C-alpha cells in the first residue's frame, strides 16, 4: 500500500509540474495575477507530493519491503539503520527522486519566501523551474521508477555497495544535489529574464541568494566526497582528478564565477548578458555531471546502473534545456539593456579577471575530462588524462587568481586604485615575505617553490583579514570605534572575508600535504615497529572480527610519541559478506600539524601474521577540508545579510510607509 501511494503521488507530482510549467507562463504573458499565482501554489503542492513520495520510499527502505525492486536491489535486512536510510539515495532511482525533491524544494522556497519578487518574474521562474521538474519526473517514472514492484518478492535484498556504507558518503549526495539543483534556480532566473527581456539589479539581487546557497551546498558536497576518498580508499590522497570528481568541480568553478559576476550586476548593472550566460552554463555543467555519472559512460562507484537508455534520456534533457536556453540567449541577449561602464582597474575589472580565470580553468577541466571519452567514442583509443595534465594546466592557471584574490576587495567600484590597494596590503605582504623566508630556512634549502606556495597561502589568509581590518580601521581609531565599525560592517563583508580566508586555509593544507607528506609501505609482523614523523608505531597483530554484514581483519597498532605518551590505533580490512567486496577502513590520528594515517594492506603470503602496511604522515591534511568549511560558513554569513530580504513594496498605497519602516 505504501509503495503504491508513493507511486501514485509521484505521478501526481509530475502532472502538477506540467501545470506549473504551463499556467504561470500563460499568466505572465497575459499579466494575469491569478494564473501567475497558480505557479506558487502548484510549486508548493508539487513539493509536498514529492515529499510524501520520498517519505514512502524511505519507509520502504527502513522496513525492508523487498516487493519493491529498488529496495530489493539496493538494501538488505541486516544493514544498520543509518545505511537503510542513506540507502534511499544510495542507488540510481532513489537518488533521482531526491534530485526531483530538492528541485521542488527550491521551487517551493521561491513560492513561499520570494513574495517580494515581481509577480511576472516569479511566475516565469517557477514555470521554467517546473519544466525542469517535468523532464526529470518523466525520466524517473519512465526509466528509473523507484516504486516498480516485484512479485514474488525475494526474501532478502542484495545490499548496498559497501563503499557507500560510510557516514561521510551517506551525506555526500544530498549536499551535492542541493548544489547541482540549486544552480537550476539560477538557470530558471536566467531563462525567465530572457523571456521577460530584462536583466537588472533587481534580478541580480534575487538570483544571488539561490546561487550562493547552491554554491555552499556544492562546496560541502565536494568536500565530503574528497574527505571520504581520503580516509576510505586507503591511499592518503585527497583529490584524484577522477572524471567523477571533475564532474562536480566544473559546476563549482563556473558557479563561483557566477556568484561574483552577479554581484557586479546587482551593484553596478554591468555584465548582465555575461551573467545570464554563466547561469545557463553552470546549470548545463551540473547536467553534464549528472549525465557523466549516471549514464554509465564512466565506471565508478556512482554508476549504479549502466543503462544506455537512461544515458540517452539525460542527454536529451541536457540538449533540450541547454540548447533551448542558448538559442533563447542568442535571440534575446542583444535586446538586453547594456550596463554601466567601468575602468579596467576597478572592482568590476577584478571580478572579470576572476571570471576569466575560473571559466578558463573550468574549460581546462572540461577538456581534460571529456576529451578521453570523446576520443574513445570516435577512434576507440583509450587514453588516460590524469593528475599530470591538470597539474600542468589547471594549477598554473589558478595561481594568478589566487594572487589577485586579496587585492580585488580593496579596489573601488568603477575606478579602482591599484597602487592604493597595494599600499593597504603592505602589512600582509611583509608577513608573507617573512613566512617565505622562514619556510625556506626551516626546510633547509631545497626547492624555492614550496616556500613560495606557503607564502601564497599566508597571503590568502592574511589578505582578507587585512581588508576587514582596514574597513573597521583596526588600530587606526580607538578600539571602541573599531568595534562599532565591525558591528556596522555588512554581514556580506564578513562572509566574504571568511570565505576568502577559507581558500587560503585549503591552499595551505594542499601545499603542506603535497610538499611534506611522509610515506612508508612496509611489511610488518606482529611485534615489529617502525619510526615515522617522530613517533614509533608498533604492530600488535591482526585478528578476525565479524560485523553485522561484514568480516574484517582488524590490525591493532600502538603509537608511542617522543614524550612517552602512547595510544592505540586500529586499521582494518573489511570484506562485506554479501558482495564479497573488500574495503579498507583506515586508522587516522589527527594532530594539529597533520594526520598519522594507517591503512592495512594484504596479509603476507609467507610470514605468519604479517601484513603489508601503508603508513603516511599527512601534514596539515585536515586543513584542506577546514578551508571548505570556512567557505561554507562565509556563504552562510553572507546569506543572512539583510540586503536580500528588503526591497519588497507592498500595494501601491502603503508603499512609502513600508519603505520608511524598512529603512529604519
Amino acid at each position, binding site marked *: *500500500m505504501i509503495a*503504491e*501511494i508513493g*507511486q*501514485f503521488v509521484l*505521478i*501526481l507530482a*509530475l*502532472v*502538477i509540474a*506540467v*501545470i506549473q510549467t504551463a499556467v504561470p507562463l*500563460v499568466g505572465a504573458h*497575459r*499579466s*494575469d*495575477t*491569478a*494564473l*501567475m*499565482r*497558480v505557479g506558487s*501554489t502548484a510549486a508548493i*503542492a508539487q513539493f509536498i*507530493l514529492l515529499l*510524501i513520495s520520498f517519505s514512502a520510499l524511505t519507509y520502504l527502505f527502513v*522496513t*525492508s*519491503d523487498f*516487493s519493491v525492486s529498488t529496495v530489493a536491489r539496493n538494501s538488505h*535486512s*541486516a544493514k544498520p539503520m543509518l545505511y537503510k536510510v542513506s540507502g534511499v539515495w544510495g542507488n540510481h532511482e532513489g537518488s533521482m527522486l531526491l534530485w526531483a525533491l530538492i528541485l521542488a524544494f527550491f521551487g517551493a522556497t521561491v513560492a513561499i519566501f520570494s513574495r517580494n*519578487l*515581481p509577480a*511576472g518574474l516569479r511566475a516565469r521562474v517557477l514555470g521554467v523551474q517546473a519544466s525542469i521538474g517535468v523532464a526529470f519526473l518523466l525520466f524517473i*517514472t519512465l526509466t528509473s521508477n523507484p516504486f516498480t514492484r516485484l*512479485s*514474488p*518478492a525475494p*526474501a*532478502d535484498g542484495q545490499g548496498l555497495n559497501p563503499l557507500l556504507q560510510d557516514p561521510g558518503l551517506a551525506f555526500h549526495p544530498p549536499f551535492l544535489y542541493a548544489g547541482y539543483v540549486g544552480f537550476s534556480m539560477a538557470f530558471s532566473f536566467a531563462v525567465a529574464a530572457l523571456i521577460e527581456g530584462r536583466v537588472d*539589479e*533587481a534580478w541580480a539581487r534575487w538570483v544571488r541568494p539561490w546561487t550562493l546557497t547552491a554554491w555552499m551546498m556544492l562546496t560541502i558536497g565536494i568536500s565530503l566526497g574528497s574527505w571520504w576518498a581520503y580516509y576510505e580508499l586507503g591511499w592518503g590522497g585527497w583529490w584524484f582528478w577522477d572524471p567523477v570528481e571533475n564532474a562536480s568541480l566544473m559546476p563549482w568553478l563556473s558557479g563561483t564565477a557566477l556568484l561574483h559576476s552577479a554581484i557586479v550586476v546587482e*551593484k553596478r*548593472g554591468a555584465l548582465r548578458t555575461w551573467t545570464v550566460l554563466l547561469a545557463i552554463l553552470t546549470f548545463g555543467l551540473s547536467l553534464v555531471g549528472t549525465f557523466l555519472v549516471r549514464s554509465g559512460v564512466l565506471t565508478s562507484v556512482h554508476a549504479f546502473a549502466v543503462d544506455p537508455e537512461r544515458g540517452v534520456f539525460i542527454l536529451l534533457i541536457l540538449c533540450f534545456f541547454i540548447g533551448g536556453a542558448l538559442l533563447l540567449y542568442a535571440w534575446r541577449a542583444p535586446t538586453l539593456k547594456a550596463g554601466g561602464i567601468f575602468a579596467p582597474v576597478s572592482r568590476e575589472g577584478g571580478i572579470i579577471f576572476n571570471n576569466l580565470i575560473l571559466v578558463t580553468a573550468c574549460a581546462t577541466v572540461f577538456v581534460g575530462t571529456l576529451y578521453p571519452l570523446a576520443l574513445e567514442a570516435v577512434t576507440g583509443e583509450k587514453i588516460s588524462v590524469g593528475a599530470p595534465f591538470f597539474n600542468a594546466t589547471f594549477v598554473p592557471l589558478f595561481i594568478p587568481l589566487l594572487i589577485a584574490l586579496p587585492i580585488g576587495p580593496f579596489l*573601488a*567600484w*568603477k*575606478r579602482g586604485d591599484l597602487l592604493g590597494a597595494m599600499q593597504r596590503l603592505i602589512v600582509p605582504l611583509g608577513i608573507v615575505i617573512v613566512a617565505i623566508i622562514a619556510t625556506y630556512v626551516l626546510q633547509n634549502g631545497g626547492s624555492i617553490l614550496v616556500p613560495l606556495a606557503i607564502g601564497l597561502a599566508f597571503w590568502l589568509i592574511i589578505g582578507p583579514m587585512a581588508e576587514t581590518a582596514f*574597513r573597521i580601521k583596526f588600530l587606526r581609531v580607538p578600539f571602541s570605534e573599531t568595534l562599532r565599525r565591525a558591528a556596522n*560592517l555588512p554581514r556580506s563583508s564578513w562572509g566574504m572575508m571568511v570565505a576568502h580566508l577559507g581558500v587560503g586555509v585549503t591552499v595551505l593544507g594542499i601545499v603542506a600535504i603535497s610538499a611534506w607528506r611522509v610515506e612508508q609501505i612496509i611489511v610488518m609482523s606482529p611485534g615489529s615497529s617502525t619510526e615515522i614523523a617522530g613517533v614509533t608505531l608498533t604492530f600488535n597483530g591482526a585478528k578476525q572480527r565479524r560485523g553485522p554484514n561484514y568480516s574484517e581483519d582488524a590490525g591493532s597498532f600502538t603509537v608511542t610519541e617522543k614524550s612517552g605518551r602512547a595510544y592505540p590505533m586500529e586499521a582494518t580490512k573489511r570484506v562485506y559478506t554479501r558482495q*564479497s567486496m573488500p574495503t579498507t577502513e583506515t586508522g587516522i590520528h589527527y594532530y594539529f600539524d597533520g594526520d598519522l594515517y594507517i591503512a592495512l594492506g594484504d596479509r603476507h603470503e609467507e610470514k605468519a601474521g604479517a601484513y603489508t602496511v601503508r603508513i603516511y604522515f599527512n601534514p596539515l591534511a585536515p586543513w584542506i577540508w577546514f578551508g571548505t568549511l570556512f567557505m561554507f560558513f562565509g556563504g552562510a554569513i553572507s546569506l543572512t545579510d539583510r*540586503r536580500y530580504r*528588503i*526591497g519588497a*513594496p*507592498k*500595494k*501601491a498605497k502603503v508603499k512609502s510607509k513600508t519603505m520608511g519602516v524598512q*529603512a529604519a
Partner: protein
Amino acid sequence: MLLWTVFAALTLVAVIVVLWPLLQRSRVAPSRQDFDLAIYKDQLREVERDLERGVIGESEAKAARTEIYRKIIHLGDNEAGAKAPGIKSVGFNRAVGVGVFALIFGAAFGSYAIIGAPGLPGKPFAERISDKNKNPSLDELVARVEVHLRKNPGDARGWAIIAPSYMRLGRYNDAANALQQVMRLEEKPDPDVLSSYGEALVMANRGAVGEDAVKAFKEAVRLNPRQATPQYYLGLAELQAGRKDAAVAYWVKMLKNAPRNAPWRSQIEADIRKAGGTPPAAPAPAAGKAASDDGVPDIGQMIANLASRLEEDGNNLDGWLMLARSYMVQKKNSDARSALDKAAARFKTDAAALEKINAARKAYGFETQGAASLDEAAGNGIPDIGKMVTGLAARLEKDGKDLKGWLMLARSYMVQKRSSDAKAALDKAAGHFKTDAKALEKIRAARKSLGL
C-alpha cells in the same frame, strides 16, 4: 478500496491547493517599477553606509548617487505599454481551472492505471518473517532463521539448519559462513560439516578447490575415511593441480567404498576414465537382486547396505531396530532375530536400549532374553559368531541365490575351523550358480584363498 480512496483524497487536495488562486477574488499586484524603485532606494542607502564606513570617498559617493538618480529617472522607459498585472478574464481563468482539474484527475489516474500495481500488497520484512505469515516461502524461512541467528549467533543448530538452504539458494558464501559458525560452536569436529563446508567453499569459488577447502576435506576424511564427498573433491583438487594419477587414486578408493548402486557411480567412473584411469569393478549384487530397471531403489540392496554399515559401526540402536524390521518385512525371521541379538550384545550395558530391543523381540514373536543371558551369549562383547553362522546357513538353505552369503558362510566356517562345512557350503553355492560364470569364478577364488 482504501487505496483508491486515499488516491482520490490526495488528488482532490492537490487540485484545490493548485487552483486556490483561481478561486479567490481578484488581487492587484504591485508593478515592476515599484520593485525597481525600492532597489534603487536601497542602493542609495548603501552608498551612504559605504561613505560613512570610509570604504568610498565623498566624490565617489557623489558619482554613485548621480548614477542611481539617473536610473530612477529612466525607470519605466522600456515598460511603456506593459499591462499592469491583474485578472484579465474571469471566463478564461475558469476554463483554465476546469482544464487543470480534468488534466490532474485524468492524467494521474490514467498513468497510474498503466504503471501502478494496486493489487500488490506491501511486504515489510519484519511482517514476512514473523509467525503471522502462515505460508512462508523457502526464502522467507531462511530469512526468519537469519534474523534468529542475528540475535542468537551462538545457536549451532540454527546455523546447521540454514546452511543447506543457502546451498540450495545458491548463496554459497553464506553457506560457508554458516558452516564455519557450526564448527566454531561445536566442540567435536563433525566430518559431515567439514565436508559441506568444503563443498560450499568450492561452490563459492566457482568450482575451484582452494586451499581452505582441501584442508576441510582432508580433515573430514581423517575423521571418516569412508565418506565419499570429500574424497571426490580431494580428487578434483588433484586434477585441477594437474596430478591426474593422484585424482584417479582418490576416486578409485572412493568407488571401492561406495555402495554398488550409488547414483553417482557412473559419473565418477566417467571422471576416472577421463583422467586416464580404470574404474574398479562394482561389487557383485547382494541378495541376488539387481536394482530394478525403473530406478526404484532395490530394497534388498538397501538392507544389505544397512547391515554392512552396522557391522562396521554398531553404535546405532535405531539402525539395528530398522534392520530387524526390514528383515521381518522380507520374512527373514532368523536374520531379524540375529540382528536383534547383535544389537543386544552391542548395547548390553544400556538398560533403556535393551528394553527397546526386547520390545521388538516381543513384537516379532521371539523369546526375550534377560541381560544376563545376553551377556553370556555375547561373551566379552564379541558377537556370537556361532549363532550368526547358524542363522546364515539356515537362510541360505532356504534361499540359495546369495553368493555373498555363501562366501561369507564359508569364511565363517573356516574361522570356526569347520573346513568341511566350509567346503560343503562352497559346493552348494556352486550348485546354485551353475549358470553364472562370474559367480563360479568367485567361488573358485574363494576356495583357493581358503585353501580348500
